[in-house]
């Protein structure tokens, strides 16, 4: 394996780099094992003064610990409680979430789509993995998988079944393929048995998948269904 890599490296270094397609694969000059590849690139960039390890730690901490589906859940709970908030959210989600402090990278243009008994919304990015980071954080592995990207647009009901969800015939499915810089958040239906619950209690029922459209909000324990 390592020998093959050294040979490839020698070959690449003799070739002129082609600017359009990566026919010469500069990345093949780095170790093939992904963790080592990242480490090698990080080291080169650090030694050249192009990245600051403290900045990397800050980025990782932000997406690991600070920004995640709890932000989206907060928005959903507010929309369930306050019709005025919900109307404003449906009208101009970007402004509304900005006021809550949930604006940022990969959430610059937000649209919220509302589930009803008549229509279920579901979000995918078939071309890459576009996802509303400020509201949901970094996408889960399945969202970025070939299977989800390939199939969500063609057979959403089969995909939903793999999440344990079956929709009645009376519900149409609308799949949003995020092909531009607009990011979509699904507003799930408020579960039965949540009358009188406050914002915190409601937010705790809102799952990440329910805001992508591959799940429903949790029904509170003990509620009749």
């Amino acid at each position, binding site marked *: 394996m390592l020998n093959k890599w050294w040979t490839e490296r020698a070959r690449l270094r003799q070739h002129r780099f082609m600017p359009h397609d990566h026919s010469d694969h500069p990345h093949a000059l780095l170790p093939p094992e992904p963790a080592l590849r990242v480490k090698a690139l990080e080291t080169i960039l650090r030694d050249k003064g192009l990245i600051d390890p403290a900045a990397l730690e800050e980025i990782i901490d932000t*997406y690991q610990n600070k920004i995640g589906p709890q932000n989206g859940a907060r928005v959903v709970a507010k929309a369930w409680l306050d019709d005025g908030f919900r109307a404003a959210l449906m009208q101009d989600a970007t402004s509304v979430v900005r006021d809550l402090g949930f604006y940022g990278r990969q959430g610059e243009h937000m649209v919220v789509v509302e589930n009803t008994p008549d229509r279920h919304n579901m979000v995918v990015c078939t071309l890459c993995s576009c996802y509303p980071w400020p509201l949901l954080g970094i996408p889960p592995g399945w969202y970025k998988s070939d299977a989800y990207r390939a199939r969500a647009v063609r057979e959403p009901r089969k995909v939903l079944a793999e999440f344990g969800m079956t929709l009645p*015939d009376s519900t149409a499915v609308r799949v949003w393929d995020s092909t531009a810089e607009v990011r979509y958040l699904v507003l799930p239906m408020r579960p039965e048995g949540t009358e009188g619950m406050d914002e915190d209690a409601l937010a705790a029922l809102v799952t990440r998948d329910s805001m992508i459209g591959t799940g429903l909000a949790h029904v509170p324990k003990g509620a009749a269904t």
Partner: protein
Amino acid sequence: MSRVHDMGGRFGDGPVVPDAEGAPVFAADWHARALAVTLACGSLGQWNIDTSRHARERLSPKDYARFSYYEKWISALTDLLVEKDVLTLDDLAGDGGACAVHPLADRRLSAAQVQGVLASGGPADRAGGPAPLFQMGQKVRTRHPGGNAMVAGGHTRLPAYATGAVGVIERLHGRHVLPDSAAHDLGEAPEPLYAVRFAASELWAQTEHPRDEVVLDLWESYLSLEDR
């Protein structure tokens, strides 16, 4: 004509395997490093989001298919750093020599700048320009053949599965930077961007339900008015 990333509708990928809601954000430490290095390098200002997406799409089909998600990121980033003359092949090979000060070192993202950069994002909408050609509810047809009209094999955001299809204008998003142009340093060329709604039966030979639909965000130059 299409590239390997353009997989909407493809058969043969098997089931989706959901992970638990509480699963770690990064399944391995190197995933987190790959994401952070990629974001930090973006701040050097040598490319835009469309360029970096296209760099991933230009991985060879074999690499694209066998690489895991963050392997694609880190490999495409490496290729881009060389292509944009930030690093040389010798640097990657470990004998680039100790340069005094890299000309881009003053653009290095500091820890103190991170929150501001992440919070300000990079809006893609642009003010001004002519009024949109299409109105809500109008029927439009997507371009066929698809692909980048300016650059052979270039970046585009009209998926192959939705070329030559008739849909209805569902929403107007304002004017947005055209990725087909911006990815290739041909200028931002902003155009009206629309959400266009398609019946599933317009896109697929077999459908699951007669009322199911797919909505895509599409730029004006991808569309023409459908009179019938």
